[in-house]
């Protein structure tokens, strides 16, 4: 399996998970110490998320797929939110919808966000994700899901592993279509 096609296991979250839920403002003093900050990921909204994700990624068999409902990441522009999700071992995010700043911030970390009908995915389901075709197969239920395409510049950023590696390479922003 390549980076573009991979298997993972779902950890399911509710609708309307805000960036304050993902990393509360009371931990703002830890923002320049990402390993410490990451320990508090989703600590109020989904207690046990960090240990569950750690245990799952430790098996090395599948990536952790964060599966959320609607309007994931609403609120603040803190890029720390997708950063700590990625540090928790999450390899991709699926959501019914995502707030625009969070969506962009996640792609900028090289963390794929795919929008699809996540009501059809249960906690613990095994998923196969094809980033090229945008096809998601729920291996636990057999259901196939498709997600919309992102603009080419976002695919290019994702391909380079995030916005900073993209800019380091291209020294510019380039629209390709």
């Amino acid at each position, binding site marked *: 399996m390549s980076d573009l096609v991979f298997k993972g296991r779902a950890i399911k979250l509710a609708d*309307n998970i*805000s960036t*304050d*839920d993902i990393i*509360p*403002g*009371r931990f*703002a*003093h*830890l*923002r*320049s*110490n990402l390993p410490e900050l990451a320990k508090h990921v989703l600590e*109020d*909204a989904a207690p046990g998320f960090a240990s569950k994700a750690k245990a799952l990624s430790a098996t090395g068999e599948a990536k952790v797929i964060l599966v959320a409902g*609607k*309007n994931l990441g*609403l*609120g*603040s*522009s*803190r*890029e*720390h939110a997708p*950063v700590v999700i990625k540090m928790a071992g999450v390899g991709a995010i699926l959501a019914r*919808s995502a*707030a*625009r*700043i969070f969506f*962009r*911030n996640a792609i*900028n*970390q090289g963390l794929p966000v795919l929008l699809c009908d996540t009501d059809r995915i249960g906690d613990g389901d095994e998923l196969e994700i094809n980033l090229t075709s945008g096809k998601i197969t729920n291996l636990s239920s057999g259901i196939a899901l498709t997600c919309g395409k992102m*603009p*080419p*510049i976002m695919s290019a950023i994702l391909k380079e592993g*995030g*916005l*900073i590696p993209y*800019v*380091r390479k291209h*020294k*510019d*922003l380039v*629209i390709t279509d």
Partner: protein
Amino acid sequence: MGKTLAEKILSVKSHCEAEAGDVVIVDVDLAFIQDTTGPLTVRRFKESGFEALARPQQTVIFLDHAAPSPAQQLSNDHVLLRGFGEETGCCIYDVGEGICHQLVAENFASPGDVVVGADSHTITAGALGAFATGMGSSDVAVALALGKIWLRVPESFLINLSGAFARGVYAKDLVLYLIGRIGADGANYKALEFSGEALAEMTISERLTVANMAVEAGAKVGLFPTDEITRDFLREHGRGDKYKPLSADTGANYEQVISVNLDQLEPMLSLPHAVDNVRPVAQVKGVRIQQAFIGTCTNGRLEDLAVAAEIVEGKDRHPTTRLLIAPASRQVLIQAMERGYIQALVGAGAIILPPGCAACLGLHQGVLGDDEVCLSTANRNFRGRMGNPEAEIYLASPATAAASAIRGEITDPREFM
């Protein structure tokens, strides 16, 4: 076909005919960071391989979220940012000057500008006809390095405003009503464009309140056309030459049109723990509150303090309710002192906090205790927002907050008028 305001501004700034749905690269007129997102932006900037800012004079650092800092780590973040400011020659507004969005409105944003900030409420400057949008640290780092950014041109919702606010009803009540109607994700990725006869009576302070909260409906930008009120504001703030008339074309294409008659509005509030959980104050009256907080980029301006001072003057806050006041900028604080508002507020038992974000985001100056309830004039009431997931936050206008501080419970401000 005519263009929306968003399409017009982005066409000029991208040097092409931009239409909703296009991805364009635009020149950035102002890029800014603040102290909770700035340190990561500085690190991203350094990782990007660039050494100099594309436009140091159009780059600003604001130290406002932890102001003054309550923790050594945040103090060290301030040290880092001040150092970056010195190295790169950009502008810096240190602790005590005020909230980034207020200072951007007072000193920088002008009609037709593209403003990007590492803060979601960057959107506030849409009140002055600037295409202002919040982004993460990496995007802003790229804006610092290249002086440009990529954007998807948003589809627009036209918000048509008629009538006038009744006594006791304010811009905050309008925007809470709108968010309740649109929903917290109803305008995700979209532009909200305000229009209608009611704008002729709407001050810049009121427009800033409305634009500020457009992001709470998911919007990328909340844009006001410009008029004489905009021109007078810019003139008063020393940049009258930056005024230009700006409005959407007739025949512009809107994804939705939402009409609101201001005559029909009443005082509104958002209930815990969602900004779009909106009801009339009259339906929620009587809920006990332990803290009222008047301030923030939504409602910490002179007009807001004037309304609060008028309500509390000669009275005392309820003995079990703290009343916190945080002016949005040093200029606001000075003017509020000159006009006697601070005297009236402190006379009623208010605590005056330094100009800055204060209690809004839970890192200092008014963190709530377990099961405490705060009525705040801020823009977010997510669980844990004010530092404690066991507390509850209601959002309302400064008038509702002031009236509620006197009674110790959620109160319709019209009872004090």
